């Protein structure tokens, strides 16, 4: 998705045909760049993608999409729509894995669509049967972006469906989370049914209790009403409430005190007492309280469950958008195949911009590879014939052919993933705050109940057991059991809206304590991409250089163009452009001969003054890669390229220091660059050239000192360290592997969310403590009344919901994350 928030041009207004003014794209409504303005064209588009999509929509007669679309929504530009061929969708292996077909040829395919953002998308996607002959039905879930397409296998292929969706502006991937999804759906339904049934039981038990409290009933009526209460209680306990007994049993078996133990104890004791009292027609019954406890606790569990899963979902959908195909060479012809189909010895083509599908050796061509994902190195690494290339690296320069050496789990990245899994298995078990408290709680309540029974046996033997059971029921940790999940769920929900996805509530508790924060550099403190950091000399030459580099695929070329765009320099056209791989580029702009590239390349075509030599050395000293620019045979400027710090990095580092955290930088990048970044940020501990294994080691060392370790990073090289650390935080733009092993994912760019995460965690823990205090206060009051023999069902029925209500209100009203 490409949410764009700064679009100011109102959609719907016909684009004005004057060049230079802000013209809205016919499809997405974003401003049309100057390069695509054509006064003669009837319709103007910001990119080829929008053009394709618009024409596909019109050809199918689906213009109503534009009327349905919510203009206030985020604008989405369908980058590169209609370009991908989806050849792998027609591979027999694909059908085997992703298509479910029945005997009549009716097949089902679940696809994850990108760019789904509003009601109009639902409308458009569900019109697929009108666009593609053979599609029977398409249903889209707008929240997850997963579309279920049913089609006739005889008349249409998965590839045709994918291409049609792509043309409509929704690039798609097969949805991989299907078995998981099915499991979750069942789990969700089970939860919902449990809540519904226990709610019905609680409501009806309450009604019969009301009638009893009204008094003046004949014994026969009272027996009937009590019997009704007992019936609803038994249903609530046997059907939805059995989870508490199951939980208590397994907790007793493992000899760990769990919140379920006091709950089950109170439920069982109260029900038995109530049943006995119903039978003998005298004494108290607590049916309305017992059923209310079951209902409230189940609601608390469901809320907690949902919130944690939402974070998992978001992470998984991000993972699903990483490409999974390779261009296999068969008889000198390229075939797009799933990476699983690759074998040792296969030859694959890796074009510029592609990700390397498997570990291999270059057999033809030479290029440069961005391996920052694997090692954290910010500078692309050159590889020529015979050089090894690792899976996951991105080809940034030119197309090469690779011979595959290892695939899947045997690749370097696969081994790192295995390290991740191993670290995750050895992670110490989490002791939840609520369970820790529950342990002391159970012991205290049981002791108190025994004391109460003993005291009352002397004074009033007939009612002694009854008083003890009343104590068990009113002190049933309902508010406690509800307080933790709700406070955490509310915080996790607020965090998610603020772009911070937290996978488990207990993470927040660990983040609240001051500890060691290990920061990765590339992609975390820095942007993780090559940028023009400085330009020494004649700055006017930038526009000409951008013109020469406009079509270049090299990272430096793109950075030049981006720098010119940032400076709002209008694009001019260059002639006779020649790109020399690994050296630079030449061209002519309005009669001026421009040469740009490495020192050696430029000096071979132009003369350089000693001043230029000094500037070049200056760039090197600052840890930047120098690029020379010459005009008409004379070097006139030196541009320095590097990976600049994020704008908010200094403020974030300062804020983390202020919160009492100890900071250290652990990066795979070159030590001088790491040192320079650390000095700029005022971080004393910094380590460069750190391998993934070394990062795990660094985490272990910090843990050995007894500190809570938080690892912040983005690459696969951080993934293993995430698992080893107390909390792993993946920043925006992270690799799939690191998302899987991280506890927290920041979906907003920059380090601002990181500071928010720490502050929010601290506030959440404060809310948790306050909730505990409130519910314990209630229990002390109610327990005191019970010991004194003053508790009657009415008091219990009032105190119980009141305590729950107050903690719920406290949880939801507290500002933990966001504004």
């Amino acid at each position: 998705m490409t949410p764009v928030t700064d679009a100011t041009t109102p959609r719907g207004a016909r684009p004005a045909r004057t060049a230079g003014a802000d013209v809205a794209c016919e499809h997405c409504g974003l401003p049309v760049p100057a390069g695509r303005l054509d006064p003669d064209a009837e319709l103007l588009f910001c990119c080829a993608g929008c053009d394709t999509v618009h024409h596909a929509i019109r050809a199918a007669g689906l213009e109503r999409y534009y009327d349905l679309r919510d203009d206030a929504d985020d604008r989405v530009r369908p980058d590169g729509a209609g370009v991908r061929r989806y050849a792998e969708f027609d591979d027999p292996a694909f059908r085997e894995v992703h298509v479910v077909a029945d005997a009549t040829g009716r097949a089902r395919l679940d696809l994850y669509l990108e760019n789904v953002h509003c009601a109009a998308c639902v409308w458009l996607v569900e019109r697929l049967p009108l666009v593609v002959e053979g599609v029977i039905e398409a249903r889209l879930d707008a929240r997850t972006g997963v579309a279920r397409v049913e089609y006739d296998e005889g008349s249409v292929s998965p590839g045709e469906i994918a291409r049609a969706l792509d043309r409509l502006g929704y690039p798609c991937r097969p949805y991989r989370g299907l078995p998981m999804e099915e499991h979750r759906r069942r789990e969700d339904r089970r939860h919902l049914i449990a809540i519904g049934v226990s709610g019905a039981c609680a409501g009806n038990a309450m009604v019969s209790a009301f009638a009893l409290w009204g008094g003046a009933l004949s014994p026969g009526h009272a027996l009937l009403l009590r019997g009704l209460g007992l019936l609803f209680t038994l249903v609530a306990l046997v059907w939805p409430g059995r989870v508490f007994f199951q939980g208590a049993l397994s907790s007793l078996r493992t000899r760990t005190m769990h919140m379920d133990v006091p709950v089950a104890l109170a439920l069982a004791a109260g029900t038995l007492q109530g049943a006995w009292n119903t039978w003998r027609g005298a004494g108290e019954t607590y049916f309305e309280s017992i059923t209310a406890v079951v209902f409230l606790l189940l609601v608390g569990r469901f809320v907690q469950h949902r919130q944690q899963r939402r974070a998992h979902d978001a992470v998984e959908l991000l993972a699903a958008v990483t490409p999974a195909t390779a261009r296999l060479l068969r008889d000198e012809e390229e075939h797009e195949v799933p990476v699983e189909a690759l074998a040792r010895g296969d030859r694959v083509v890796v074009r510029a911009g592609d990700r390397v599908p498997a570990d291999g050796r270059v057999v033809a061509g030479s290029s440069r590879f961005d391996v920052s994902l694997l090692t954290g190195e910010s500078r692309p690494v050159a590889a020529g014939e015979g050089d090894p290339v690792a899976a996951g690296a991105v080809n940034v320069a030119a197309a090469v052919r690779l011979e595959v050496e290892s695939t899947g789990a045997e690749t370097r990245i696969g081994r790192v993933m295995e390290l991740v899994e191993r670290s995750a298995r050895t992670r110490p078990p989490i002791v939840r705050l609520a369970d820790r408290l529950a342990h002391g709680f159970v012991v205290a309540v049981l002791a108190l109940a025994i004391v109460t029974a003993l005291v009352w046996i002397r004074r009033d033997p007939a009612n002694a057991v009854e008083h003890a059971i009343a104590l068990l029921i009113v002190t049933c940790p309902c508010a406690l059991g509800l307080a933790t999940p709700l406070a955490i769920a509310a915080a996790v929900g607020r965090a998610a809206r603020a772009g911070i996805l937290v996978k488990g509530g207990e993470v927040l508790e660990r983040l609240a304590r001051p500890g060691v924060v290990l920061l990765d550099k590339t992609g975390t403190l820095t942007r993780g991409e090559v940028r023009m950091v400085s330009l020494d000399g004649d700055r006017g030459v930038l526009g000409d250089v951008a013109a020469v580099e406009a079509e270049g695929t090299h990272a430096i070329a793109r950075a030049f163009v981006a720098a010119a765009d940032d400076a709002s320099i209008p694009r001019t056209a260059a002639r006779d452009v020649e790109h020399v791989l690994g050296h630079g580029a030449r061209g002519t702009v309005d009669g001026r001969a421009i040469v740009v590239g490495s020192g050696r390349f430029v000096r071979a075509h132009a003369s350089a003054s000693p001043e230029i030599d000094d500037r070049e050395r200056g760039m090197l000293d600052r840890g930047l890669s120098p690029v020379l620019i010459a005009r008409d045979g004379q070097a006139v400027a030196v541009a320095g390229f590097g990976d600049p710090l994020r704008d908010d990095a200094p403020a974030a580092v300062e804020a983390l220091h202020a919160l009492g955290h100890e900071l250290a930088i652990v990066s795979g990048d070159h030590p001088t660059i790491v040192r320079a970044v650390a000095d700029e940020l005022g971080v004393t501990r910094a380590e460069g050239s750190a391998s993934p294994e070394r990062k795990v080691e660094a985490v272990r060392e910090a843990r050995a000192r007894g500190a809570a370790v938080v690892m912040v990073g983005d690459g696969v090289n951080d993934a293993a360290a995430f698992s080893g650390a107390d909390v792993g935080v993946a920043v925006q733009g992270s690799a799939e592997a690191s998302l899987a092993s991280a506890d927290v994912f920041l979906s907003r760019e920059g380090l601002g969310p990181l500071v928010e995460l720490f502050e929010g965690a601290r506030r959440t823990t404060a809310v948790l403590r306050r909730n505990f205090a409130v519910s314990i206060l209630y229990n002390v009051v109610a327990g005191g009344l019970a010991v004194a023999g003053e508790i009657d069902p009415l008091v219990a029925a009032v105190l119980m919901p009141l305590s729950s209500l107050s903690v719920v209100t406290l949880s939801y009203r507290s500002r933990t994350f966001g504004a």
Partner: protein
Amino acid sequence: MSILGIAVPVALLFVAAAIAAFVWAVRTGQMDDLETPAMRVLHDDEVGSERGVSRRPSGRRSADRG
């Protein structure tokens, strides 16, 4: 007593019917996605051969626009 003898079983039947209806609704997936159907209701034309709607796009009428 006599009136309760009728009213209570009737009330129990209602409760049982309500619970059964709820369980049925959940099991048939009506609570799975609570967002998209709310968007779908705004669409005036339904698609799909199952609903007996012709394959001819009804949006054709506006094809000359633009």
